[in-house]
């Protein structure tokens, strides 16, 4: 899409307003789903799906990512890769039970007793 053609810009303005309305609807749905009292994993999944849809609308339409140049996509792809690493590293440490109070270890209780936990 051309960002210098006034006719195209006028068309885009309509899109911006529709996306704004969709974001409002998304917010209402998020709050409404919260009132349903779903089990925690379901509630987290639902909220994150709605937030991701809303975030994608902001990024693709308002930030014009739906029609950007290769260099922008390239830098964002790198960011996503590093973001995944950033999220994975602490999660892997939890899987290893590092830092967990329930990790198996021997503790000394008093002078004579040893117990496993």
């Amino acid at each position, binding site marked *: 899409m051309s*960002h*210098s053609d*006034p006719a195209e*810009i*006028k068309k*885009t*303005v309509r899109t*911006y*307003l529709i*996306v*704004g309305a969709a*974001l*409002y609807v998304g*917010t209402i749905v*998020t*709050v409404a789903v*919260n009132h349903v009292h779903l089990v*925690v994993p379901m*509630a*987290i999944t639902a*909220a*994150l799906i*709605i*937030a991701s849809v*809303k*975030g994608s609308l*902001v*990024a693709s339409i*308002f*930030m014009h990512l739906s029609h950007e*140049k*290769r*260099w*922008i996509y390239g*830098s*964002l792809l*790198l*960011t996503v890769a*590093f*973001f995944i690493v*950033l*999220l994975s*590293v*602490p*999660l892997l*440490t*939890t899987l290893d039970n590092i*830092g*967990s109070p329930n990790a198996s270890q021997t503790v000394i209780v008093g002078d004579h007793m040893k117990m496993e936990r």
Partner: protein
Amino acid sequence: MDMNIPYTVEERPDTGLYNGKLGVWLFLASEVMLFGALFSAYIILRSGSVEWPHGELSIPFGTANTFILIGSSVTMVMAWASLKLNQWSRHKLFLGLTLLLSAAFLVNKYFEYSEHLSKGEGPWHSTFFGLYWTLTGLHGLHILGGMTVMLYLLGPGAKLHKTNPEQFTNRVEVTGLYWHFVDLVWIFLFPILYLL
């Protein structure tokens, strides 16, 4: 000798982008990592905790602020589109509205913070409130940063529109990119802190 900085308006032949746009996107990439680190801390602290508090934050306050920020994103993009359509007074109106909405967001946040502090729920109160204050505090600082730039564009920075309207339009566009990112972060902060 020509001392002008190149590619402030025209696009570089190799990237197809003007300098400011590439610069802001690289800055936003670093911002993703900054907030990503804090989201990562949230995930590890929450998944490692035996219990997690619910209903500590006011959902009406959070919802109102979500509506305000979405509205400000719409007015911001309209401010840019108005410049593209050579509608200067509409541009000023929309940019002013964006500034007003961002101020409303901070006023709302002030009342919310005051309420928590009066109950002794500062960042020292618990892991949850530590995360809440850090994440929303950093986000609030980003709102302040955006407001400063908008004030400049409405005030002394507006003079550039007379001498170099295209460069001014580009400045508004990159400010908008930053502002939409701040909105995007809040779109994720609202459910994870207020609802889940």
